[in-house]
């Protein structure tokens, strides 16, 4: 909690009315069990912050068990840019003893632990924290009259937090109505009762300070939308005119397919659930072949299953979008945790020489824009395109400026214009653009798309000269794409001691680390790659301006001491000053860890 007028709530023990304190930023961690509605309470807080033009970022873990087990949700609300979910919590809400035991270590010194005194016995001898005990379970049951039991604890806590942080109760109650209003009225009423009970609780008896966020400076800008990364990805695909897709459920990819399955029919499209991952990629390729660029997606193990068919897409030059929401691997690994260990798989996971386009979004907002870019590249270059998201982006809720939909939403129909006699599906002197079925071929020769090596007309051939020429054709188009990719900007000093290079969801902690270091007078810079294959041209010129290049990524340092992107950059630039900072705990980087790793 960065306070503009530093005032430690622990310092004043007076049990008076809550004294206001202005803050720029607060990290609130809710810890309970997975059936307690921790996620929905956290998500409501995040959306409230988004509506109040505050910047917001969330972080959640959901146990991979079906029901039960510890669960947590962390919301960071701030004024100005919130780049990471926060290293330490300012405020911990603990529903159970285990929630307290497991999470107290994440509370900063001087932080507040608000605990359910019906379940938690805190260690009050530890004088580092402020203890606020409230019988949350008992009060919820009392407020709701017993039939709902303790369901509603989450909303009771929302009421408490609304009071403590001075949230706009009108807006929050409107959000509750939006969330529960569709169900039967008694559910909404129960929620509102729980909220009001929490808000009315005389928290001033146990806590002395009330916090108030400084107003956001850019209130006059575009409206903010609040969503998670999988939603942003799905809606980005819809904006890009993608209307067809197929997949199989797997965590943490699944919510993308759930959204597309129910949304695409509204747009006249169709998303189907298939019998398995191979059936899914094959069905998606059938959609693409029929003239409708399609999307399939999965998480690591499912992508492995799709690999042979993706090889076909490369050979047949069929456009396709493949989303991989990465999780910890290999195998079933850590299905609900985050890792960036599928980069090699995305770039090199194919059989044969099969160059693929690989993009990675850096934030929730970027999930939206990268989907649009992936669709554009797939269509223009008639090629499979990977989007490497990850578990942390998938479940993180962020607020961002509402996209300019009017200028982004596009519609595509299959191009069935009759093709002239000179039509070649695989021209050696140009980019492939297929004639989908239904297209009349005026020369009377109809095209075959194929996974066999072929000549320009799609006839199978084992001709050595043609295999070399066609292999080069498939490679050249990616080189052509590389020339179009803008060089990413450098954040921080344009030259100097060290450049942090990141990709994907590490963007936030890396940039915050640079900011923190620079605020402390250190010289540090960062560069974030969204295009991982092909890489943009000219990176070596940027690298030349720094003494050290440190690649920060959530994967293993490998046999030779370098992470996956670091290895690729070292191979590409033969630059010995490229080193690695890795993390494989299944958790996102903390800002502190990056600073320690870099400045040591």
């Amino acid at each position, binding site marked *: 909690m960065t306070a503009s007028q530093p005032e430690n709530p622990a310092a004043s023990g007076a049990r008076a009315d809550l004294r206001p304190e202005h803050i720029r930023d607060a990290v609130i961690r809710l810890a309970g069990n997975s059936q307690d509605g921790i996620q929905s309470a956290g998500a409501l807080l995040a*959306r409230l912050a*988004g*509506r109040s033009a505050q910047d917001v970022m969330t972080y959640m873990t959901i146990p991979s068990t079906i029901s039960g087990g510890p669960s947590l949700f962390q919301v960071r609300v701030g004024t100005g840019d919130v780049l990471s979910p926060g290293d330490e919590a300012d405020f911990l809400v603990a529903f159970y003893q285990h929630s307290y035991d497991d999470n107290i270590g994440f509370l900063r010194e001087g932080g507040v632990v608000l605990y359910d005194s019906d379940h938690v016995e805190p260690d009050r001898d530890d004088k580092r924290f402020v203890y606020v005990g409230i019988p949350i379970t008992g009060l919820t049951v009392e407020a709701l009259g017993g039939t709902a039991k303790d369901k509603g604890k989450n909303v009771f806590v929302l009421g408490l937090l609304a009071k403590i942080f001075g949230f706009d109760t009108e807006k929050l109650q409107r959000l509750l109505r939006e969330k529960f209003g569709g169900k039967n009225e008694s559910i909404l009423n129960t929620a509102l009762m729980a909220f009001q009970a929490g808000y009315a609780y005389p928290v001033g008896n146990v806590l002395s300070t009330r916090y108030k966020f400084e107003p956001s400076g850019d209130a006059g800008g575009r*409206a*903010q*939308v*609040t969503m998670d990364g999988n939603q942003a990805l799905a*809606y980005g695909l*819809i*904006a890009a005119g993608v209307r*067809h897709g*197929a997949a199989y459920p797997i965590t943490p990819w699944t919510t993308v397919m759930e959204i597309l399955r129910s*949304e695409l*029919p*509204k*747009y*006249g499209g*169709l998303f*189907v659930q*298939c*019998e398995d991952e*191979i*059936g*899914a990629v*094959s*069905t998606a390729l*059938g*959609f*693409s*072949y*029929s003239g*409708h660029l399609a999307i399939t997606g999965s998480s690591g193990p499912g992508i492995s299953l799709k690999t*042979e*068919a993706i*090889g*076909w897409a490369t050979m047949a030059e069929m456009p396709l979008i493949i989303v991989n929401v990465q999780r910890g691997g290999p195998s079933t690994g850590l299905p609900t945790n985050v890792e960036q260990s599928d980069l090699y798989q995305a770039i090199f996971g194919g059989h044969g020489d099969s160059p693929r386009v690989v993009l990675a979004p850096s934030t929730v907002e970027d999930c939206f824009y990268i989907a649009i870019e992936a669709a554009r590249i797939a269509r223009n270059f008639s090629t499979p395109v990977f989007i490497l998201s990850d578990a942390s982006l998938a479940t993180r809720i962020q607020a961002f400026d*509402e*996209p300019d*939909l*009017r200028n982004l939403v596009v*519609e595509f*129909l*299959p191009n*069935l214009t*009759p093709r002239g006699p000179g039509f070649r599906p695989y021209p050696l002197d140009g980019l492939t653009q297929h004639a*989908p*079925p*239904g*297209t*009349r071929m005026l020369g*009377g*020769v*109809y*095209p*075959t*798309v*194929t996974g*066999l090596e072929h000549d320009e007309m799609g*006839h*199978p051939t084992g001709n050595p000269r043609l295999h070399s020429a066609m292999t080069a054709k498939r490679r050249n188009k990616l080189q052509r794409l590389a020339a179009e990719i803008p060089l990413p900007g450098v954040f921080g000093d344009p030259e100097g001691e060290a450049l942090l290079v990141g990709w994907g969801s590490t963007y936030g902690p890396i940039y915050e680390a640079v900011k923190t270091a620079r605020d402390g007078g250190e010289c540090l810079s960062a560069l974030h790659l969204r295009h991982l294959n092909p890489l943009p041209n000219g990176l070596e010129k940027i690298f030349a301006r720094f003494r050290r290049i440190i690649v920060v990524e959530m994967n293993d340092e490998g046999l030779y001491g370098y992470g996956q992107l670091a290895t690729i950059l070292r191979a590409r630039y033969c630059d010995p000053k490229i080193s690695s900072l890795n993390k494989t705990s299944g958790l996102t980087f903390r800002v502190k860890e990056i600073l320690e790793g870099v400045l040591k």
Partner: protein
Amino acid sequence: MSATIPTLGPTPEKLTKKDLSADHPTWCPGCGDFAVLASFYKMLERRQLPREKIVTLAGIGCSSRFPYFVNTHGGHFIHGRAVPLASGVSLARPDLHVFLFGGDGDAFSIGGNHLEHGARKNVNLTYVIMDNFVYGLTKKQTSPTSPLGFKSKTDPNGAVDQPVNPMKKLIAAGATFVARSHATQVNHMVAMMERAMDHPGFSVVEILSECVEFFPGAFDAGNPRKGGEFRLIEEKMWDGSPEDERRHDPSDELAAYKLADLPFPGAFGVFYENDRPTKNALEAQWVEAVRAKTGKKTALELLQQTFDRMK
């Protein structure tokens, strides 16, 4: 979906075998697949479908070379996965006639799961399976339909695994048109393919098609010219006659199973047919209902509405 595809009117030229022929087939001389190809041309000549609306797709195997030999839109996919590929084409483009060709390895071994689910979902397409009881392209290994005792390079002492019964597998999976034919019977193949094409739903014709190189004589027992019997399934005519009593009712699933259990070479014709709604129709209905509910808004309006809810 269908509404977005422009109609281009009828194809002006009359479709002949000459138009339909493409690359010269690479099959061995005497291969049963030549007759299947000839029957397919014949069926298309009879029906005069708009040529650009015909799609021939296949997986991997000798018979899966089919699309190269037919001058229509076509695709040669990977081993065993042609059913989901064809499902995508069929679901996205109701204006097309989707034909799928392949062998016993593609259909019953590596692609077995997709066959099951394509049939269960009743995707509208026609699948012609050229069953030769052996892996020919890779030169004589055991196939899922190789009879017990068949000696191959992977079963030098004779096959020990119970072969698949294609008719039973297809009926159990939920295919809505299941027929069987023999590559020496051109008129019968044409009739079966034609009925399969006209059937809305997942229609399959298994054709016993001899591999002269690696399993010669496999289907002589079903070929009268080789001393065998081509036993036709007589379908009920519902004329009330006493002989109609013993004729086959293709909607009778149990009777179809019994026919499928006849000793080799068994019977030929339509084993099973029902008119369960297709996935194509059910999905299209859903899309229509959703579109009607949202008032057929433009994509921009729809997405704007969604984003307004996230503010």
